[in-house]
């Protein structure tokens, strides 16, 4: 029990440290936010869609912006640990190393969710659609959780590579496709006013992806990081 508490404390401390570094440097969330807003602006002005088409595209646009922004955040998260080899410092801590995975995944999840929440009013304004639905927030939480879980795992895989900035999106986007499809379909259904019962297969898929990537982090993170 004592060691489990220590495990949880390590997760919390890694999250807290990431927040502290972000607060001090402001190099992660603001960049992610600006980038996702730019994607929204560019699509809005480039496509000049009719209101009917806009409504059907909102969910897709939300998730494309989030996926791109989150990948930037994941890259920033890796470079933070690469800088001065700080990751070694985390690996020296006397707890199971999956705690490092959960700590990093929790920070990545929180930063991307913050960006998503900031994006909702902007998308509502540009695409004239109310995005403030509780079920949509639930889908965002599940989708971002699965995406950042997978991203954290893959960022650990690419950390030793010289081409990690390019390697991460190349690995991440194809593997994250099922998550993005499920998230877009569930979001689109919610925005179209479909009952949640009709969307449960997509929501369960997102839930399963969260469980799967958490389990993968628990089992493989240490092996991935040890050279």
């Amino acid at each position: 029990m004592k060691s489990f508490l220590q495990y949880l404390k390590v997760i919390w401390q890694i999250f807290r440290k990431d927040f502290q570094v972000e607060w001090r440097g402001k190099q992660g969330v603001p960049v992610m936010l600006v980038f996702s807003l730019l994607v929204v602006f560019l699509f809005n002005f480039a496509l000049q869609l009719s209101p009917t088409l806009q409504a059907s595209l909102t969910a897709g646009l939300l998730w494309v912006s989030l996926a791109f922004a989150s990948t930037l955040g994941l890259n920033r998260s890796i470079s933070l640990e690469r800088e001065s080899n700080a990751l070694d410092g985390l690996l020296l801590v006397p707890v199971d190393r999956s705690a490092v995975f959960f700590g990093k995944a929790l920070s990545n999840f929180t930063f991307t969710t913050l960006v998503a929440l900031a994006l909702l009013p902007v998308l509502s304004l540009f695409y004239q659609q109310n995005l403030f639905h509780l079920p949509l927030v639930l889908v965002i939480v599940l989708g971002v959780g699965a995406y950042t879980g997978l991203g954290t795992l893959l960022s650990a895989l690419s950390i030793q590579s010289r081409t990690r900035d390019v390697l991460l999106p190349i690995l991440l986007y194809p593997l994250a496709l099922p998550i993005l499809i499920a998230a877009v379909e569930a979001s689109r259904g919610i925005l179209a006013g479909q009952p949640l019962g009709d969307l449960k297969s997509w929501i369960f898929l997102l839930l399963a992806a969260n469980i799967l990537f958490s389990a993968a982090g628990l089992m493989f993170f240490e092996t991935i990081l040890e050279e």
Partner: protein
Amino acid sequence: MTMSTKSLDSAPQLVIRDLVKRYHFQPVLNQLSLTLTDGDFCILVGANGAGKTTLLRILATLVRPNQGEILLGGRSLTQSPALRREIGYIGHQPMFYNDLTALENLHHYARLYAYPHPAELVRDAVQSVGLTPHQHKPVRTFSRGMQQRLSIARALLHHPHYLFFDEPYTGLDTEAAQILDAQLQYLHQPGRIILLAAHQPGRLLRMASHIAWLQDGKISHHIPAASIPEVPALQAYLQEGA
């Protein structure tokens, strides 16, 4: 200097048996064995690329060996993550977050090691390496010497019994090197084992109790520092590097 050692169930002893590490099928360490006992301060020498860093990273559990066994105080290092509490490691890089201050970085590590009252511990650690006037500055503003001193404070924060240093003098100015000398002399005491890798050990030989020569992936000689003249090849190697 306020750092102390905490009590240990048994006297520290490091046993490395038949360690093998290959990178891309090339053996870096090949059936390496070495035993260090309580109070040893051993300098690990060897040419560039001999595998000194690999050995220390394996001992710090940062790299997994292909074969072999490492025992700390009779317990297998690979079996128990909790044994990492006994290890202090200083590598080539300082392992800090550059945007955080010296105090914030050490607080982070103290919390990771679950100290109930980290403030006092961190304050003492910063003081012990003479960085109190700079404790509120971001690490990014520190010189190499100051970062190395802070690394020592980090590595000693949890009072480890096994200390592994990888070329700690690299990039240090004279003043920082003297501070490190003093710290090593202080740390060299019963209840602790120090293994320090150095390409050119120089004056360290006066402080160390033993020297181990890493050649062809093995420890070819492991002798008391006072016995170096008895091994002409080693003496010649050390003079060559000096």
